[in-house]
């Protein structure tokens, strides 16, 4: 991937992100934050390659800790978001 293509992706994704989240009700501010935070744990896939590449002890150790941190970020983020959102919808279901 050339630098220009990388920058193109970056710029387009930024604009897309700004468009997607222009009007969010306050009720969803926290779940949106924790959910998007879990997505930013995507760095996990880089961590997996670093930890598994067997290049040197140093890079493997760094990669290993990156895997742990990123997995906590990803799993914790999605689970806690799900927990919050189910609180928001719980009452609705009971009434219907």
């Amino acid at each position, binding site marked *: 991937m050339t630098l220009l293509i990388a920058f193109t992706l970056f710029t387009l*994704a930024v604009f897309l992100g700004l468009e997607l989240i222009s009007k969010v009700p306050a009720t969803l501010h926290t779940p949106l934050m924790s959910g998007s935070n879990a*997505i930013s744990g995507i*760095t996990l896939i880089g961590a*997996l390659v670093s930890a598994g590449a067997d*290049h*040197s002890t140093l890079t493997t150790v*760094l990669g290993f800790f990156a895997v742990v941190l990123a997995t906590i970020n990803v799993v914790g983020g*999605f*689970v806690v978001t799900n927990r919050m959102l189910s609180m928001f919808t719980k009452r609705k279901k009971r009434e219907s």
Partner: protein
Amino acid sequence: MSRANVIDLGYLVAAVLFIVGLKGLGRPRTAPRGNLMGATGMLIAVLVTLVDQSILSYQFLAIGLAIGIAIGALLALRVQMTSMPELVALFNGFGGGASVLVAASSFIEINELGNSTGQIAVAAAVTSLVGAMTLSGSMIAFGKLQGRLTWNGFRGLPIVRILVALISLAFAVQIGGFQPEGQLSLWLLIAGGFLLGILCAVPIGGADMPVVIALLNALSGVAASTTGFVLDNSLLIIAGSLVGASGLVLTQIMCKAMNRSLLDVLFGAAPSAVDSGDDIYGDQVTSTSAEEIAMLLEIAERVVIVPGYGMAVAQAQHAVRELMQTLQASDIEVSFGIHPVAGRMPGHMNVLLAEAEIDYEHLLDMDQVNPTFKRADVTIVIGANDVVNPAARNDPDSPIAGMPILDVDDSRTVVVVKRSLSPGFAGIANPLFIADNTLLYFSDAREGILEVTKALTES
């Protein structure tokens, strides 16, 4: 199809799921599905990565993933809703920290293989700086939210901060431009970023926390995105910048709700401490009792409840629900007025009230609730201070002048539930407390509300 094609295709599917998921998270009805889509995208991305040829040994991956899943799930399932801001701060920090480690590991590997380019070096430098700042900033925010960290910095902090920033920048330039092999420079840069994150977060007080948490969220996305430039990985770039942008939107919303610019929050002078409350208000305060409040509520037709951080601290949300139900049972209309920056993170009050099973139809935004205060017989302010301070509206010299507030003083009677007269976080006197139509009820939020409900049911 080759392995590389499978991986790229998997990443494309994951990117689409992230985009659709993020869009879903913005609407109440689609939010649970949006979250699920994001999680599915992540699962696909991880699975296809595991077939990557450059992964030679899987034992560390399995151990690392298992530890991460166990800790993440445990934290997420056991956390109290009142501690949600801390948890979000912690996760932001972990994301930033992981990005630093990945960037460092890859940078070292690429250098040792002799494949380094200017692009990789610059991206590694930026990731180190941003990621390390996110990590240490989040840790400071975590400590402050837990109430364990009360240190607000020292006199020369702004100057030290500029010095550290300049030194870090020098290391970054060195790595990116002149000496792409510089492993030592990279570690020094990470240390510099870490220190900078501390120096930026330490002076920030509780009332500004919603802005800081939203900003850290954006930064964790930016760090992931720049890691993508190091690894030449399109999915990291896309997902990271999506999160960075959405975090920035949220940060902007929070800043607007406080009428402050982001730079002002981060680098502005911390509000100076003022004298204790008794000196400001003297004996002009009218205090009240649970019985008197119950009598006022009995003859009311419309009641608005305005919660703030004090409700979270006292874990009063369930007591508030009981009060609401008692009032509704006597055909009194109850609604909640929620300021965007009430509490310590964006949407903090909404999460707490949802935990107490209060329907979100009863929760009104600032714009919705403000015109209705004129028709409110009683407004109960529970543990909120600066967001209901009329000085923001009336006093151009006030430090919070121009900040949009909830116009609770428009209602016939305002009851402020507060433990003591200590000034709010911003350290600003609140003329609301000495207004003619304001009654102060000195009590812990939970105890106080329970007392009022008891007095209501007994009468």
